């Protein structure tokens, strides 16, 4: 029997990944004044989506990815629904390979993230080119992809520490330790 306040704690741990993703999305949207970077800002929200989608899929549900994409589209002025679709596809691709990569080390996960992100950036470019009926330049998308890949290790290490703490707390609560 789990005590009510322990249930609340479990709930808090389960919403934390979503909260972190939302905070990174806010930082992504509100970070201005960084000379030239505003057009190539790393796609920070995709890093926690990947990390938690890979490590603890229940904490990163599809509906959350969809809603986050919708908010991003509304604020950035992109076609409504594009990011939602891309985020859901991103999560689907993560889950499809989860059983093979889940137990692998950091380098394999980083490599898979790099590949997936490349696919998402390419899909984004194709969709936008179709949407606006013109061929968009790929350079900004490549820069954004590269910067996001560079940011991944830093956030991954931080999330690793947090994930370990959450897992320990969950185990303690569920097993009454």
């Amino acid at each position, binding site marked *: 029997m789990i005590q009510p306040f322990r249930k609340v704690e479990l709930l808090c741990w389960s919403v934390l990944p979503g909260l972190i993703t939302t905070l990174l999305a806010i930082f992504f949207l509100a970070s*201005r004044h960084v000379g030239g970077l505003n057009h190539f800002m790393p796609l920070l929200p995709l890093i926690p989506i990947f990390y938690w989608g890979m490590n603890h899929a229940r904490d990163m549900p599809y509906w959350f990815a969809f809603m986050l994409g919708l908010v991003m589209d509304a604020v950035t002025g992109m076609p409504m629904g594009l990011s939602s679709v891309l985020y859901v596809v991103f999560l689907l691709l993560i889950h499809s390979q989860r059983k093979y990569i889940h137990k692998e080390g950091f380098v394999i996960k980083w490599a898979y993230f790099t590949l997936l992100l490349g696919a998402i950036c390419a899909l984004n470019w194709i*969709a*936008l080119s179709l949407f606006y009926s013109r061929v*968009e330049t790929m*350079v900004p998308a490549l820069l*954004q992809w590269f910067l996001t890949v560079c940011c991944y290790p830093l956030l991954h290490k931080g999330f690793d520490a947090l994930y370990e703490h959450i897992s320990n707390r969950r185990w303690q609560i569920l097993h009454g330790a």
Partner: protein
Amino acid sequence: MLLVMSKTNNPGVIRLRTAITDAVTPVLSVAAAPMDAIYHAGTWVADMSRLRAENVALKNQNIELLQWQSAAKQLANENKSLQGLLRVVPSYKNSYITARVVADMGGPYVHSALLGAGGDSGIKKDQAVISDSGLLGRIIDVGANSSRVLLLGDINSRVPVMAERTHEKSILIGNNSDWPTLSYLAADSKIEAGDRIVTSGDGGVFPKDIPVGVVTSVDKGIVKVQPFVDPPSAEYVSVIDFSL
């Protein structure tokens, strides 16, 4: 389905977008404050390091400006008396709404900014948005407490402009880069690098003579313009209610 509706400018999608931006704008406004503080701290340090050189330059500029002020006063008086003689009716009057930029990025493919003021403050679609150094863009979406500005660099941006020196009219077209280009120029155009570009007032959307940018290059008929306003540095802007 949302994408298709978005492509056809479905009113429901526009309402959804403005409802979301209205809800998110206060959060972004709060989040932008510490980032502005960090930016100002950085610029403060940089300013301090070049204070002495700037002081000398400003003293020289002040002497020059005083001469210009005297000339401007003289011209203003002359203009006033001539207008009085001719009974000139002013062609338009402008009023301004000041708003804060809460987010100014749309990724590599959309160049737009989000303002923390909307229809409740009197902002309307298609109004011109200026900062202290010139034209930033025009309003394309209006919510209750937020509005979106289409920046000059966006590929969908079209602004009627003219060269201040030659008075040649053209359209400034965005290309998703920081250097929009001039189109519909005459084949024998005399525009050259260094020419100032201002709004022409054609079309009735923008008032006349708002500084837009400076021509940076003229190469094989492609005239590139560097806008005076650097969007990331625009913190507060004015939305012009341009009444003809």
